[in-house]
């Protein structure tokens, strides 16, 4: 039987957050360096970052009481014992 702990998925999620942060900063950097920082671009940037913060908050509040040590079965030999 092959199992992995649940917190592995949390690490994958954190890795994705890093990718999200990097790409968001690149987008914002483009706006700044091309002389396009105006009221419209500020509103859109603020809207995106506010939504992102709300998403982080809801994700955090939903996953607060989770036992991250729970193990998930990835592969179990018994699944194939009675197939024939």
């Amino acid at each position, binding site marked *: 039987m092959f199992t992995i702990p649940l917190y592995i998925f949390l690490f994958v999620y954190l890795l994705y957050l890093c990718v*999200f942060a990097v*790409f968001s900063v690149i987008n914002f950097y483009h706006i700044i360096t091309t002389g396009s920082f105006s009221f419209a671009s500020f509103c859109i940037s603020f809207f995106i970052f506010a939504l992102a913060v709300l998403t982080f908050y809801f994700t955090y509040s939903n*996953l607060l009481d989770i036992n991250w040590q729970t193990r998930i079965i990835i592969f179990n030999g018994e699944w194939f014992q009675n197939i024939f």
Partner: protein
Amino acid sequence: MAIPDLIKQKPYEKIEYVLRRHPLTFVPNVILFLVLMAVPVIVFLLINNLYPDMFLGDIPFVLGVLLASIFYLSIYLFFYAQFVDYYLDIWIVTNDRIIDTEQKGLFSRSTTELDLYRIQDVTANTEGMFKTLFHYGDVMISTASNNTQIIFKDVLNPNEIRERLVRMSDEDRIVHQNQKI
């Protein structure tokens, strides 16, 4: 950085237009964003109706929340990138030249510059119901050699811009002829 720094404005230069695409051209992206935002909610309601016990366990619940979170963050990023792509296509017209900067995706950007006195043809093109109703369209500018062509895509009042460009080009040509003499 401001527009004058971006184009390295010369002392005698005056910025006449800073043009961007009409905001209506961004509306399809907003609609797509709203539709995508509704997808996880619809999927959750469907699954919850068909399999009410599915999200009771820790594991499906955690995976569901993390997946939904990643999906939403991806939509934000996609929408933001679309906005940058739309907003960073800028056409700057001064009394001396035209600077066309186009953002192509996140990591590609092209800048073309054209002296006003080199302009040979200017064409304004408005095609379609929305463009006609909301007075936006393309302005195509080409030089005598036809090597350089700049297109102002989906800008407001293309015909007015065309007329102004022709007048400015004539004025600039006179200035350059006088300088030669």
